[in-house]
């Protein structure tokens, strides 16, 4: 197929993905009452970081971007050359899938007419937070070791 020789993910995609992850991490940790406690919100231009409603809305906006980018990658993969994921890529994908699944539960629980049991929500809440921390550790390690997502180079080639 002709697509095999075309760049699948350009520079814009990588920038958007990076921005999305950064935004999700910052606004996600902003859901913990730590930015006011540790003075981050007192820094110039960052007062909004202690506004839970605002950071929550931003988090959902970044989640929109995250899902759109993920679906984009899946569709490109389905109609492209389908390169295999590396082990670290698989690991990151599995963690992101977990974050996505627990995040969806958290989004749904905010709807007026949807009710989950408190125990389900406890697992979703703590799981979302724990997986986010694991993801951050994982990307730090894979970046330090220069481990790519794919077995063969793919990004922007």
């Amino acid at each position, binding site marked *: 197929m*002709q*697509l095999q*020789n*075309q760049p699948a993910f350009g520079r814009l995609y990588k920038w958007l993905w990076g921005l999305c992850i950064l935004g999700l991490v910052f606004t996600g940790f902003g*859901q*913990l*009452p*730590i930015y*006011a*406690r*540790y*003075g981050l919100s007192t820094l110039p231009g960052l007062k909004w970081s202690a506004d*839970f*409603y605002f950071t*929550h*809305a931003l988090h*959902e*906006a970044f*989640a*929109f*971007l*995250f*899902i*759109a*980018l*993920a*679906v*984009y*990658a*899946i*569709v*490109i993969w389905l*109609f492209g050359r389908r390169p295999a994921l590396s082990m670290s890529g698989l690991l990151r994908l599995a963690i992101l899938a977990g974050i996505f699944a627990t995040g969806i539960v958290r*989004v*749904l*629980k*905010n*709807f*007026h007419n949807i*009710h989950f*049991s*408190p125990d389900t*929500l*406890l*697992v*979703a*809440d*703590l799981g979302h*937070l724990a997986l986010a921390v694991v993801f951050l550790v994982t990307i730090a390690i894979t970046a330090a070791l220069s481990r790519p997502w794919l077995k063969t180079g793919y990004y922007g080639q």
Partner: protein
Amino acid sequence: MSNISRRSFLKKAAASAGGLALAASAPRAVAASPKGAELATVLDIGRCIGCGACVDACRTINNFKFPRPEKPFPAMSPQDRVKVEDWSEKQNVDSRLTPYNWLFLQTVDVSYKGKDYLIHIPRRCMHCQNPPCANLCPFGAARKLENGITVIHPDICFGGAKCKAVCPWKIPQRQTGVGLYLKMMPRFAGNGVLFKCDRCFDRIDKGKLPACIEICPEQIQHIGPREAMLEKARAIAKDYDGFIYGDTENGGTNTFYVSPVPFEVLDRALKEQAQPGPHLASVKNSMAISENLGKALLLAPLAGALAAGASIAGKLKNSRD
């Protein structure tokens, strides 16, 4: 001559009357709630005499749930921003919400349509239908039960007080020196546990009434399925051409106050007469933006698929060219 205030006299008289009534009659059970239906309460504040029996009953019945802090409290960092909140030496305070007082009375003198009123308003958690405290708690400690009651689990709460920050009425109250944070990193994260009315969920589970409702000598409070209680509130309001608060506030709560005086008037009086605690102003749905963004999230896969489709189509076109 002993100086007995009107309220303390009423309190004693009502407690005696209420106690006798309780002893003499079988406890009224909570009206059966259909599976999945939320329980709501109606408070006819036009008939509240301000005796405070509900406050006392709440404190007595829920005493076993009150915090028993360990002292000295661990140091918390940074010290200038993280303040100890200790109510353990002020457990007798019943004139405001505290971790040891989940229900209190506001009293206001108001005039409306040429008539004077002395209105007593029992205040506690409104038990919102879509509670921001439970939705936004990062640890799943604040939680809404299937029967519409919102509770804070004292063994899970970390004491960050986010629930209080997002509550339109600032209901939950923090006690330092208790809870899970003590077992983690008390210096760096957490600051106790938040406490608030749990609508005696444990008594309701046993088919009993919440303590405040059971003790009320005037029977101004009622509890039952939300729709039935809303009808009751409307009927009471119609009776004396009154007003309802709580049916639409914050997107709808499970507490309906019915008053012969408009709530804007009461809210203004609360401020003018420096009454502590929750307001009675109109409250927009705190979770509305989140609900709308949640709906928008459902369109995200479509946006991604369309972008990918356009990208593929463009590349195919370029390949052909």
